[in-house]
């Protein structure tokens, strides 16, 4: 181990190699703090050549490497590997170029998400993916997780908004993937890399697509006396041919938590509210807003408010944006889930979640991207109460399995990481998981990049509680049971 640190110190400045338990603690987890591991050391290279040299050393020494951005990830994707190296890309934090004619921004991976839109604003452009952590999270991490945000219903996820990547392979080779054109020859490796959770290569440069900033925005807030009616409202808007920029739902528990916190003026008696953002040119937004208001009323909204001005619109959004901290005030701890389901199942899945909540004796608050069916149930627990964390995790696992059962997925935008690795066994069969391992092996033959994340071993699936027996058939008959 000391030989790795020595070799790293030889190629990096002193302050760019962190070792010693106290200074390493900062890096022991990401935003999923229930999982913590101390790495052997943390390195902070300042340019591509240094990243490459770090990887070459780790490759030669057979040491695992976990790439890390801002550490805001919610699934433990950047959780260190014990005795491994954490490769922080924080120092690669420059916006290299903005080309307003081509509508592209070339940035280093450590650039904060929000700063791209800030830099593009003078040209009337913006970078669309806007995860809620956008003031802190970095573009490299966004690529690794295929991050979304509240506007991806209309503008897409990270995979839709990047044009090219430079990556360093585990062997230290630089690969250029994608191009400034609209496609590139060969396989779509850009898509394969996006959301690959740092398992296939280390992203060292990203070319982002910039979009014209909408001229006008309008926010509507609609209250419903049932979650089902709110779900119908969502379907009715889409059936009319309108794709809102954002379409968010909160249940009663969330409305009350938020209102107590930010006083956004939300209707606290409502079973659910919808926030609908429309954007475009002025005339379009005006006509669509009226149309959506009518649709919401005929879907059973008990009240529809249209923001009278920018300030009121911001107030409507303020509640949504404060939802997580608001929940943080009413519970000692909460556990955020990320399943995505076909929209038509929203009401029934929320019903199941409510039943599970009673069964596990833990409260739950629902706030989610209704437009694309991406749920974020927040399970309330207290880590100080013995057994509650374990119950919360089991409850969360059941929610994800429910999502898969109705045709959805265990993760819409937070990634699998270490958190949902057991549920991967529910969503994919042994052949599919094997193919994922083979893909990783194609990029990373020694298996050193972020090992143990995102794709479970078949052994783990066989052993984990996530194994289910459907119709008497074991899902992994070829695996030995213990």
């Amino acid at each position: 181990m000391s030989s790795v640190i020595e070799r790293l110190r030889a190629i990096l400045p002193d302050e760019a190699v962190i070792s010693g338990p106290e200074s390493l603690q900062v890096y022991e987890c990401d935003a999923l703090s229930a999982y913590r591991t101390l790495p052997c050391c943390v390195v902070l290279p300042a340019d591509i050549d240094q990243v490459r040299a770090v990887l070459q050393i780790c490759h030669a020494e057979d040491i695992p490497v976990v790439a890390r951005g801002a550490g805001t990830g919610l699934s433990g994707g950047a959780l260190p590997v014990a005795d491994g190296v954490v490769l922080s890309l924080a120092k690669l934090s420059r916006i290299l170029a903005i080309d307003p004619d081509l509508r592209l921004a070339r940035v280093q991976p450590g650039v904060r998400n929000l700063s791209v839109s800030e830099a593009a604003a003078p040209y009337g452009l913006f970078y669309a993916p806007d995860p809620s952590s956008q003031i802190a999270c970095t573009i490299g991490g966004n690529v690794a997780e295929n991050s979304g945000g509240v506007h991806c219903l209309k503008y897409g996820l990270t995979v839709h908004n990047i044009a090219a990547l430079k990556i360093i392979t585990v062997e230290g080779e630089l690969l250029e993937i994608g191009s400034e054109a609209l496609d590139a020859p060969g396989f779509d490796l850009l898509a394969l890399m996006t959301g690959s959770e740092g398992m296939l290569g280390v992203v060292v440069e990203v070319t982002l697509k910039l979009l014209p900033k909408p001229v006008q925005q309008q926010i509507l807030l609609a209250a419903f006396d049932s979650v089902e009616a709110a779900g119908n409202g969502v379907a009715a808007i889409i059936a009319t041919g309108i794709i809102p920029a954002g379409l968010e739902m909160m249940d009663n528990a969330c409305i009350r938590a938020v209102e107590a916190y930010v006083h956004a003026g939300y209707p606290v008696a409502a079973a659910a509210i919808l926030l609908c953002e429309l954007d475009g040119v002025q005339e379009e937004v005006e006509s669509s807003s009226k149309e959506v208001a009518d649709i919401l009323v005929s879907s059973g909204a008990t009240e529809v408010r249209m923001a009278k001005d920018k300030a009121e619109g911001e107030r409507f959004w303020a509640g949504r944006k404060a939802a997580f901290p608001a929940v943080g005030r009413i519970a000692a701890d909460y556990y955020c889930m990320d399943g995505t389901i076909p929209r038509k199942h929203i009401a029934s899945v929320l019903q199941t979640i409510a039943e599970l909540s009673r069964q596990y004796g833990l409260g739950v608050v629902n706030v989610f991207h209704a437009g694309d069916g991406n749920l974020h149930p927040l399970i309330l627990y207290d880590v100080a109460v013995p057994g509650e964390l374990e119950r919360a995790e089991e409850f969360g696992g059941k929610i994800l399995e429910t999502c898969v059962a109705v045709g959805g997925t265990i993760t819409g935008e937070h990634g699998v990481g270490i958190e949902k690795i057991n549920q991967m066994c529910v969503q994919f069969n042994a052949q599919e998981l094997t193919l994922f391992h083979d893909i990783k092996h194609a990029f990373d033959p020694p298996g050193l990049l972020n090992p143990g994340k995102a794709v479970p071993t078949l052994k783990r699936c066989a052993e984990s509680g996530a194994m289910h027996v459907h119709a008497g058939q074991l899902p992994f008959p070829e695996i030995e049971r213990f």
Partner: protein
Amino acid sequence: MSVNISNLYQELGERVIAASNSGQPLIIKGGGSKQFYGRNVIGEVINIRSCSGIISYEPTELVITAYAGTPIREIENTLSERGQTLPFEPPGFGDDATLGGTVACGLSGPRRPYAGGVRDYVLGIKCLTGKGGILTFGGQVMKNVAGYDVSRLMTGALGTLGVILEVSIKVLPQPEYEIALTRETDFNTALSQMNAWAGKSLSLSAACYDDGQLNIRLSGKKTAVASARKILAMEESDTGLDYWRQLREHQHAFFKDNKTLWRLSVPSTTGNLDLAGEWLIDWGGAQRWLKTDEPVDKIRRVTEQSGGHATIFRGGDHDGEVFQPLKPALMKLHLRLKQVFDPDRILNRGRMYQDF
């Protein structure tokens, strides 16, 4: 149709396994409308045309799932009945184009720069790999980051990674209103305007430069299109929206001869390329059709210097490399991925590159 599907899948799986045992290459065929695309291949035809039919379609979910052999025309008609569409405007190049072929070829029409390409709408795929396994990736929901994005990896892979059996694809509402506009101008002005307009909220859904004319299509809410029209101050085109349908399907006069047709995919602001021939500039400058007798090496070199890549689309030599050759490090990765999906190299062997 769906009652026999498991039998069909079993037959296809058995054929693939037999082929992989014997080393017999297979040519995957749907409607056969894009057999011209890619390198010439030899082998036995494995036809997926009989795997046809829409599996599920719920307009309010914005998703359609269908068997790969389903004609694109059937899908578009079904969507149209509910006021929806495939926003990437896939060219069919004939009535027989199928969903599977569309996804495997990864070709998109005039709306590509403004709405995204095939790969941006693919949500999930069921496929048969060269090992004979039937695997499912992605799903029917808009957001899904569980596992590597194999569905998009398969998109545009020309069947070299697997036989696509089923596809779930995101759909969008049809534009409420569309209009085709035109103006006579020179190339440089057209190019800078197409790029400048793409950076503004102008409801642009297509832009090309063809025979001295800058042609534009606007699509969207009627109010938005009206507002953009005022700003652009262009004439309404005589050929109307038909022009764009013809361009999408290569029925336009430009495509109706036997000259070698190249497709150059370049950054949209790329200036005049030093290649003699006839040009049609689509995708707001990003896709350039070129009929030329210039040497292959020169075309590839000039295109690559601009940051793009060149494909021999129709005519010319389809026994040599049709697509821009990959850098060695990227080719190595392609070979390793081919090894993962199709170790015996039986599926569309050589269709994309000679090496696999």
